[in-house]
């Protein structure tokens, strides 16, 4: 590029910051698109690689650069890219505070005119999924798939131990005792990466703390964290840990080891995201897809929250406001969220239930994923992940204190005191 065109490109980037991105604008099919994905896992990587190849074949002047990260590394990588003003044109985002950061920093393009209510593209998505990326009444995210947490279990082990799918939290604990007596680890649980344990707690909080209280506490400005439901949920988790898991040792086990234990038929259950169904049970693992079943973590009887709540959230992508070719980025995402590509994503080996209406074909999908989608549709409230919905400092307090709680070194009161303190320090 000559200097003059470089300057022109920089100027164009500046104008792109203007709030409206003129959806009708003619797409210029040339240049480079960089994409930060969360599909870095070996099993998921080909999805975007294939999409990119196909798109490049359709538009030979477009080059796509993929940065594929995984669950563990995506946060750090995103932060570094943001700090260096090198945000890719299209980037992964969770809902909640995480996505809000980009909006607050004016890093994400406002997509209201192209994906908002009444737009052609917007109508192709499950409405709740698009709405999850609304900030201050504007639409910023393109949901790719739906995610929620379920207890996956091994049908043969349940049969051997003579237990049924538990309907209540108490029934789950007694089922665990029966399974342990039958010689299996009831639930494989690895809390070396502390978000794994926090997922249990998020679901239990939704059962024990009323939704409006929970949502007020997610916002540091209105947080008080004094609802008794918090201590109740921690108490339930402690019981669960004692009856169902390896105990305080869980902090030394990686979540990957835990999932392996279920796949190897050594444990009866593993609490997992719907997007993990297709990796927990594969035709080549000891636990086959036919032997795999799932159920929502059962709600404790008489808890003060919403027993029909389910922990989960759509996950999606945003477009950088600094992108030199926003229309092209939008066009690529339209391509990625076509019904056909949605079906590919929903089916094995990916098993990520698409957020696109008609983007999932039960015929080609793992039946458990199909049933999981139904369960998501029936949930009265999707409570987002605690570590992405909260301010980073509050999330850090949850993560480390809860790890201490699981290891038996912090009490429930200490956990809540630390979380409260972190929330106060942020709001000041």
């Amino acid at each position, binding site marked *: 590029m000559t200097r003059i065109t470089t300057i022109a490109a920089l100027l164009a980037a500046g104008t792109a910051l203007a709030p409206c991105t003129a959806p009708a604008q003619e797409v210029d099919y040339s240049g480079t698109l960089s994409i930060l994905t969360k599909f870095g896992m070996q099993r998921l990587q080909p999805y975007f690689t294939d999409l990119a190849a196909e798109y490049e074949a359709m538009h030979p002047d477009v080059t796509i650069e993929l940065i594929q990260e995984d669950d563990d590394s995506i*946060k*750090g990588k995103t*932060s*570094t890219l*943001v*700090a260096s*003003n090198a945000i890719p044109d299209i980037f992964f985002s969770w809902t909640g505070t995480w996505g809000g*950061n*980009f909006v*607050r*920093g*004016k*890093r994400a393009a406002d997509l209201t005119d192209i994906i908002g209510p009444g737009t052609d593209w917007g109508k192709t998505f499950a409405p709740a999924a698009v709405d999850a990326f609304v900030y201050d009444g504007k639409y910023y995210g393109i949901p790719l798939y739906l995610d929620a947490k379920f207890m996956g279990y091994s049908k043969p082990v349940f049969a051997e131990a003579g237990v049924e799918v538990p309907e209540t939290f108490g029934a789950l604990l007694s089922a665990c005792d029966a399974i342990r007596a039958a010689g299996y680890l009831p639930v494989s649980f690895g*809390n*070396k990466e*502390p978000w794994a344990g926090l997922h249990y707690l998020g679901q239990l909080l939704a059962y024990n703390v009323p939704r409006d209280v929970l949502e007020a506490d997610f916002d540091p400005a209105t947080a008080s964290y004094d609802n008794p439901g918090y201590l109740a949920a921690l108490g339930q988790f402690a019981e669960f840990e004692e009856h169902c898991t*390896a105990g*305080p*040792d*869980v*902090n*030394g*086990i990686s979540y990957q*080891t835990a999932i392996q*234990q279920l796949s190897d038929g050594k444990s009866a259950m593993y609490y997992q995201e719907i997007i993990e169904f297709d990796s927990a049970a594969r035709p080549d693992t000891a636990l086959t897809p036919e032997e795999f079943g799932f159920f929502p973590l059962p709600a404790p009887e008489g808890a003060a929250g919403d027993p029909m709540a389910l922990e989960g959230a759509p996950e999606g992508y945003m477009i950088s406001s600094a992108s030199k070719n926003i229309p092209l980025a939008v066009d690529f995402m339209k391509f990625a969220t076509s019904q056909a590509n949605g079906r590919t994503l929903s089916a094995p080996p990916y098993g990520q239930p698409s957020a696109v209406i008609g983007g999932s074909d039960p015929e080609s999908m793992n039946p458990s994923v199909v049933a999981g989608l139904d369960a998501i549709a029936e949930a009265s409230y999707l409570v987002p992940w605690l570590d992405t919905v909260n301010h*980073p*400092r509050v999330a*850090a307090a949850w993560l*480390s*204190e809860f*790890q*201490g*709680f*699981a*290891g038996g*070194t*912090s009490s429930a009161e200490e956990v809540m005191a630390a979380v409260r303190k972190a929330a106060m320090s942020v709001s000041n």
Partner: protein
Amino acid sequence: MARTLSLPIDGAAGNGSVLSGLRLSPAARRFLAWRWVALAVLIVGWFVYYPIFDNFRVSMTSSDIFTGEVRNVGLENYRRLAEDPVVLGALANNLAYAVLSIVFQVFGAFVLASIIEDIATRRMRNIWRAVYFIPSAISTTVTGLLFYFIYQPDIGILDGLLTALGLGHWSRAWLGDASTAIYAIIAMSQWQGFGYSTLLFTIAIQKIPRDLYDAARMDGAGPLRQLWSITLPMTREMTGMMIIVTITGAFQVFNEVMVMTAGGPNNSSQVLGTWLYQMGFSQNEMGYAAAIGSLIFAVTMACGLAQLWYTRRRRVAA
């Protein structure tokens, strides 16, 4: 030498063949000698000294990477540092690292080196030294991951070994237990590092004149006596340096902790380096991270000055 003079101009940056032909005043000539050190001064100044000064400036700010907003907050980050319980825990962990490393990598290695020098043949001596050195040659990422697996409750060989020895009740999730995590990491570090210091000690011991030992033996001194009254005093300089280097290293430790526990569970194995990383790069609190950096600077600087003072003193004494 005359032959070398007729060689064509050499390509080194410190090339003086053109300059030497010129008539220069001695002062100018002395000034030109700077060209030898210019690159070193430049690169060290730019990438080592400047960032460390800049770190103090950053430590007085608070920034939001998403909005790009930077605020001056004065000493606020240092106040937070003083009140942060994790910093205190991290300091204690760094200290434990230093103490245990001195025990194993300085004194343990010294004893081991003496044993090797005393009883092994020349050939075996080289073999022992080389074998013990292997872990030091390998990346801490590899050894950290390796021990991460060794400490695992299910696939790890440590718990398997303990069970085989009838000590099954000792087995635990070494890295998952807040009371053992940092010690498990330190243990790995000793495994990795002792060979390096053993090698350095054997070199130092070999420099001791043999006749000192012969004379001691004539006087009927046993091996322990020789160790105490000859080897130890004669390697004192090496020991002193090693202690200071070990302490400095213990306050910069990062890699093994990052790979094995990332500071968990519940920050129990956090050291200053990993806490800085976590604050700066996963919680985006660069200002606070810089303040932690200042603390590391203060500690390592103190060690460095102690080292300088020690070598000076030794030199004067010698």
